């Protein structure tokens, strides 16, 4: 069983999917000979050939629309957008077509495509390379937004996304491409796309997050444990459709909740979760919900970036505030 990091797990899942189903086509800028700028598609072209692993022109709108056509013809395109900052020209095709082709044609045509993109900051990248705009996609009906936060979940969730008969935006937290290694069995087994993952059970407070912030959140849970506080940690993983059950049963138990994400606060997906709690979980809440998020400004370039990223300290402060209520 290979010990792999998140990026390698993505590569493993792509390899497995291409092996298992020859309708899987990998495409995007530099995904071929170069193996992708992060190397997520490394080795695929050698193994599966240039017909199935396609370097595309620099044309995000075009290749997304092309993927819709391919998917409608029963292929399984897995499209890489190089950085999330370059995903925006693709939004028109995603919202106006990919996410509603099945609905528009009452099931006659479908769109089983996956759009992969690395996202998030904290790697000292140039301008426009550190976006976290998952909330924009999570507002699109007919679309699934999936974000892995460990090698195992990257493998299982990507396989699930590719097998899924509907479109999935699969966002990879590039800051943690290499932070953790796990033994990931290459068994082709998909993980469920309708479940949050409880990474740690606890009884005093629920910490909810996704993507790279899982690292600081788990560290927060560790620190809280030292204070004698038992924190439950939930990795949302599939933002939409949202598994409210897991979230609600946790908050019913703990009565307290902190939501952590890197994206800007206003309109971020943390708001949706907090709103659901305010609507249907209010009576379980012993304290206000807190969001620890990126600020409502453009994520700064590297010189100020670390001030922007939600830190362990901010998570702890929020958790402690919430714990003070009785």
């Amino acid at each position, binding site marked *: 069983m290979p010990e792999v990091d998140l990026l390698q797990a993505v590569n493993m899942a792509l390899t497995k999917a291409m092996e298992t189903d020859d309708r899987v*086509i990998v495409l995007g800028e530099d995904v071929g000979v170069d193996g992708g700028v992060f190397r997520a598609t490394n080795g695929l072209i050698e193994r599966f050939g240039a*017909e*199935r692993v396609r370097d*595309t*022109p620099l*044309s995000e*709108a*075009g*290749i*997304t*629309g*092309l*993927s*819709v*056509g*391919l*998917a*409608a*013809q*029963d*292929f399984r*395109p897995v499209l890489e957008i190089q950085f999330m900052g370059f995903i925006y*020209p693709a939004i*028109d*095709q995603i919202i*106006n*077509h990919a996410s509603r082709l*099945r*609905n*528009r*044609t*009452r*099931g*006659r*045509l*479908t769109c089983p495509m996956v759009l992969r993109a690395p996202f998030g900051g904290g790697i000292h990248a140039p301008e426009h390379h550190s976006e976290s705009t998952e909330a924009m996609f999570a507002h699109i*009906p*007919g679309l699934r937004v999936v974000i892995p936060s460990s090698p195992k979940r990257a493998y299982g969730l990507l396989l699930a996304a590719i097998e899924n*008969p*509907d479109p999935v935006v699969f966002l990879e937290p590039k800051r943690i491409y290499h932070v953790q290694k796990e033994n990931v069995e290459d068994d082709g087994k998909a993980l469920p796309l*309708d479940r949050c993952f409880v990474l740690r059970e606890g009884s005093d407070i629920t910490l909810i997050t996704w993507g790279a912030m899982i690292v600081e959140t788990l560290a927060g849970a560790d620190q809280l444990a030292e204070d004698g506080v038992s924190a439950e940690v939930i990795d949302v993983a599939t933002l*939409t*459709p*949202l*598994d*409210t*059950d897991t979230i609600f049963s946790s908050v019913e138990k703990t009565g307290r909740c902190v939501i952590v994400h890197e994206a800007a606060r206003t309109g971020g997906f943390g708001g949706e979760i907090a709103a659901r709690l305010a609507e249907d979980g209010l009576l379980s809440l012993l304290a206000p919900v807190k969001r620890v998020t990126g600020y409502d400004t453009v994520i700064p370039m590297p010189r100020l970036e670390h001030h922007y990223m939600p830190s362990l300290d901010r998570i702890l402060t929020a958790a402690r505030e919430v714990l003070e209520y009785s």
Partner: protein
Amino acid sequence: MTDHRSLHNLEIGFTGILGADGKPIGELPEFASNHKQLIALYRAMVLTRRLDEQAVALQRTGRLGTYASSLGQEAVGVGVAAAMNNNDVLLPSFREQGAQLVRGVTMVEILRYWGGDERGSCFEGPKEDFPAAIPVGSQFPHATGVALAMKLRNEARAAVVVGGDGSTSKGDFYEALNLAGVWQLPVVFVISNNQWAISVSRKKQTAAKTLAQKALAVGIAGEQVDGNDVIAVRFVVERALERARAGQGPSLIEALTYRLSDHTTADDATRYRPDEEVSARWKKEPVSRLRTYLTDLGAWTGKDEETLLNESTVQVEEAVTAYLATPLPQAGEMFDHLFESLPSDLENQRKQVEELSREKTDA
């Protein structure tokens, strides 16, 4: 040294076969010697016009939504679809009723769609054809994907995508054209240049003399055709399709036509174009042109015409009746095809919309 290297293939061909007066001005293609085939084209154009007329009337009386008539442009849709094999795939704009009819989309389906019912895009006939594209130009990239699928499967099939003159200003058009060129995909891009994009004239859309020459930007074949000449349209599209299916790459065809109607039933074209322009264009419209030719040939009589008009009227009326009798969809259906199966997160919403609609019905 300033050296003017002249490039290859920088000519744009133009094909016209029947003149505006219905007299041949060019060599007739082989299929034209078969009068039955010409009559089939004629009948399809007449039926399209009848359907458009009736649809506009339905809209005016509140029984259909906003509608985009193809009056004056029937030769483009009919010619394009007639050139296609059944197993080719059509990706139309929102003004290609003619093409859809020939492809086997039913009039009832077309009316349902414009009547505001998604079931109208669930074609019984051409199952792989795309529904009408409302966001202008967004259909072009889909066609490259469909064509790539055919190519990957080594099939002798092609995709045909239709857009308007306005659609050629969108990045989608260009990006799709470029993808088709670089991967030599089996796709034919047809531009139905009806001279207007709502109130914006062809000239205000681009400084390019022709839209066909946009093919040069991506290194593929481009040509113009008289879009009011259904024989010419069918001929050039057929030729382009043969090339595409034979692996000889994509083409761009600009069909020169004119929108004789308002943009849609929500538009008033007299606000932006002079009546004289429109009346001059009526003299070149496609239906009477082919009728004259067939009549001159002795292949079509006043009697035939009368029969056809009656038949078309009956056919359209039957479709209208069936359309108007369509049972309303159930409220819950708005969730039934969002995903393959409804995520549990949405079950409550589906339940709510169903309950509320039951209450309304009961009340």
